[in-house]
């Protein structure tokens, strides 16, 4: 059990270090065991250094940097334990426009056999979707669904 944990940790850690610069457009990051000597109980630390910045405590990261670091961790886990489809419910809320675009591009280039379903308010994410559903409540309290195009959404916004 503990070797399996150690093995999975190593794989996720390697994936995390690999994906981080792709997500951030640079920088370094890694996962570390809080206690190397106690594999059964050790916690996991995140060490993240966005591009151009000095390595500092995780708590000093900005809102958007935290979100992008967590997204990186999730995709590191997905690399080690792939899923056939993935629903992402507004994961990019704190990201600025440039990071939204980079993340949407990352999804676009992801393993083509994975289906992504992205619930989003952000134009940059919508722009990379292969198809869009608009959810609305024309009748109060009752949801209805419509296939929409990006230009139709843009007109509404």
């Amino acid at each position, binding site marked *: 059990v503990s070797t399996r944990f150690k093995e999975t940790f190593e794989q996720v850690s390697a994936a995390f270090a690999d994906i981080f610069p792709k997500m951030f457009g640079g920088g370094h990051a890694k996962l570390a065991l809080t206690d190397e000597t106690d594999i059964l109980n050790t916690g996991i630390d995140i060490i993240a250094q966005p591009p151009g910045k000095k390595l500092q405590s995780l708590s000093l990261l900005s809102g958007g940097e935290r979100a992008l670091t967590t997204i990186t961790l999730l995709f590191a886990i997905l690399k080690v334990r792939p899923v056939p489809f993935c629903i992402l419910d507004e994961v990019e809320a704190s990201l600025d426009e440039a990071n939204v675009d980079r993340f949407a591009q990352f999804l676009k280039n992801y393993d083509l056999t994975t289906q992504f379903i992205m619930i989003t308010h952000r134009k940059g994410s919508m722009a990379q979707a292969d198809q*869009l559903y608009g959810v609305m409540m024309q009748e109060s309290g009752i949801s209805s669904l419509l296939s929409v195009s990006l230009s139709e959404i843009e007109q509404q916004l």
Partner: protein
Amino acid sequence: MPLKSLTINGFKSFPDKVTLEFPKGITGIVGPNGSGKSNITEAMRWVMGETNVRHLRGENTTDVIFGGTAMKAPLNRAEVTVSFDNQAKQLNSDFKEIEITRTIFRNGDTNYQINQQNVRLKDIHDLFMDSGLSKESFSIISQGSVEQIFNAKPADRRSVIEEAA
């Protein structure tokens, strides 16, 4: 094993039957605050066997049944159906097409079906074992969980890796 479609009928803000088809690639779901987007996420979570009402923002199991509006009476049952293409046998079944339906009634009675055969919740969980879609998988990232995961203590992050292990 592509996800093929999701049909929502009487679940939360969907009293009228609605079906989403999922092609390859990226499907975007957009709309105003409170329009029902996260309810779609929860419909998927629910039909795949979610047992924790907290993960569905509810307090009781029957909270997922359409509760009515000023103009429309509450319904007595919620039903969600998800269909998969199983040609690559990613799910533990010999069927080439798999349709899972979950139903709940006002009195709390629940019903599960795989390809129109009544089954137990356990059979739904077994279907997904080792498919990358089990309860421990990260196939559904709920609204707000990104911030939650970041704020987790180092010990809690450990359990995230343990679940993946």
